[in-house]
């Protein structure tokens, strides 16, 4: 079974600054995938970034990047040049290569201050 832990229920960041959201996971599988999903007030979850565990290079998507520490089972999300539109609930999630569904953390509510 996989578990995902987000230890920061709430975070805030000043507009244009950088913020890092933490996530740790546990899995016994060697083939797995990690994700960050964003949930704005509209409730519609949107994929922010995806990382394949076998890849050593950290994934990046524009202002979003991850710090994937495989040995430590850590998968943090860095948001650079934060914008008001980044305000949302952020969920870390994992999926093993053999599994069919995502396991989600409890989420981090990000507030962006103008």
């Amino acid at each position, binding site marked *: 079974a996989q578990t995902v832990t987000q230890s920061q229920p709430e975070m805030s960041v000043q507009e244009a600054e950088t913020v890092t959201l933490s996530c740790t996971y546990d899995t016994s599988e060697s083939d797995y*995938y990690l994700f960050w999903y964003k949930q704005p007030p*509209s*409730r*519609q979850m949107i994929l922010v970034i*995806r990382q394949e565990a076998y890849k050593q290079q950290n994934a990046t998507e524009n202002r979003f990047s991850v710090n994937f520490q495989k040995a430590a089972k850590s998968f943090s999300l860095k948001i650079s040049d934060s914008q008001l539109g980044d305000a949302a609930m952020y*969920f870390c999630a994992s999926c093993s290569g053999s599994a*069919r*569904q995502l396991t989600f*953390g*409890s989420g981090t509510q990000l507030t962006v201050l103008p």
Partner: protein
Amino acid sequence: GAGVSQSPSNKVTEKGKDVELRCDPISGHTALYWYRQSLGQGLEFLIYFQGNSAPDKSGLPSDRFSAERTGGSVSTLTIQRTQQEDSAVYLCASSLPRGAREKLFFGSGTQLSVL
């Protein structure tokens, strides 16, 4: 439609009543998921459909919960004899065959309130 569509957006019901929640996935997506999101919590997996294969029902919390997917497209989640603890947002997601390993496309959910 262009995205995953769920209806109704909000549903208020009385304890003991049955409810049906509908999900219309993206055309061509063979995988369909239902998740439940309780207040302030993460998402809890309920059920997974993939093409014509038998669904994975391992996440359904009780036999009051059931789901079907007709013609490989629209799905209905049914909750019988609703209880107050069933109050939550029910999210549907669809994807291409590789499923959650790639990317899930979510609907905006149904907020269910059981009085």
